[in-house]
């Protein structure tokens, strides 16, 4: 009895602490390294600096290593959970939604704890953050309140009991961690995702095309083709994917366990087919 209690306490503690190893996998599934690492050879992972160009200006991903000054070394776990769940900084100000918290809000508490444990285990980097370079008036952070009110629904992923475990896992990987919709769902003029066009692709504000991930398009490809593509970045005829997705494939989809990759595809095959965006 005592042993069982001790074991339970130890396990409970392990869960409460978060598991850095699981967190490492979740960080891959979330593609964190992409925006939080400079785009040059030899850049320190998670030390920030990637430029994200948008119609509202250029955002720079911040340093998320545990450095006391430059990184998030002074944060608490609760700060981290609040940042991802609610899009709020430790000082209470809103993050710009270039940080994809509309997706990350769906990450479960236990996964957030594991992610936090992993980020704490990284070597601190003193790389200083650079301020975002935003067009007037989008640099006004308080405007994000309105944006959030319009477009942001906080709350963790709730599995659909009517669906299989695989489909729920796939939904979680695509909608929460993978934040696929941040690029594959078209946005309105205020940068809010068009919910009725979820994952239907179209054009990014900079005019670049993004493929439709609903069955309308994916039905043309076999599971093997899609798996190969998400692992190698190449299609069966040797075509090479453009680098924005190439990076996602290197950092995320090629790193997924085979069951997770299956779940991801099963979920995409299960969603409602939406027609291609009008050109």
């Amino acid at each position, binding site marked *: 009895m005592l042993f069982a209690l001790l074991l339970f306490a130890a396990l409970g503690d392990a869960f409460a602490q978060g598991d850095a190893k699981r967190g490492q996998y979740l960080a891959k599934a979330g593609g964190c390294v992409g925006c939080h690492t400079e785009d040059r050879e030899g850049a320190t992972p998670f030390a920030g600096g990637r430029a994200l160009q948008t119609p509202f200006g250029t955002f720079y991903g911040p340093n998320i290593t545990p450095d006391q000054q430059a990184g998030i070394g002074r944060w608490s776990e609760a700060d981290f959970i609040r940042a991802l769940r609610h899009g709020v900084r430790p000082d209470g100000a809103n993050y710009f939604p270039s940080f994809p918290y509309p997706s990350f809000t769906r990450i479960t508490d236990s996964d957030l704890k594991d992610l936090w444990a992993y980020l704490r285990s990284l070597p601190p980097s003193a790389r200083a953050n650079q301020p975002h370079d935003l067009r007037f008036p989008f640099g006004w952070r308080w405007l994000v309140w309105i944006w959030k009110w319009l477009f942001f629904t906080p709350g963790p992923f709730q599995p659909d009991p009517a669906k299989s475990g695989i489909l729920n896992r796939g939904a979680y990987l695509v909608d929460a961690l993978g934040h696929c919709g941040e690029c594959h769902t078209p946005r309105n003029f205020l940068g809010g995702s068009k919910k009725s066009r979820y994952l239907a692709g179209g054009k990014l504000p900079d005019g670049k095309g993004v493929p439709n991930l609903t069955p309308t398009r994916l039905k043309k490809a076999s599971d093997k083709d899609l798996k190969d593509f998400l692992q190698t*970045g190449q299609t069966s005829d040797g075509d090479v994917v*453009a*680098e924005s997705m190439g990076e996602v494939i290197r950092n995320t989809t090629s790193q997924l366990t085979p069951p997770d990759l299956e779940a991801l595809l099963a979920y995409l095959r299960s969603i409602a087919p939406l027609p291609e965006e009008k050109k």
Partner: protein
Amino acid sequence: MKSKLAVVTFALLLGVTLDAAAQAKPEVLVKQRQAAMTLQGKYLGPLGAMAQGKAPFNAQIVQRNAGYLEVLSKMPWDGFDASTKGEKSAALPAIWEKAGEFKQAQERFENEAAKLVQVAKSGDEGAIKAQIGATAKSCGGCHENFRQKN
């Protein structure tokens, strides 16, 4: 005087002839450049599979394909003649609007392909796989900004 005129005439004629040889019809240029890139895909594809561990590593095939790719890497570019702007293809106007960047992207691929030839000779499997990745990345870098995604 007459001989000078002959030289100039000859030079002009030669110029016109060379130009005509280089100036295939726009639709032909598009077809040819696409063919060059199709072949790049043909010879890069199996290497990508090897780099990802989806196919058994074969140093000989890597060496052979790397040699092909080095030559093929130079071929598509003169097909992006301004005369082809109006042709139906995935080529974006940025190719001509940002000609300098396009040129850099070409050179990046040519350099990576040339480096792959060198690394392939070394027999160092890890280095070869990394260089295959770098070569594919240079393809994707160009596709990112200069090819219409769909």
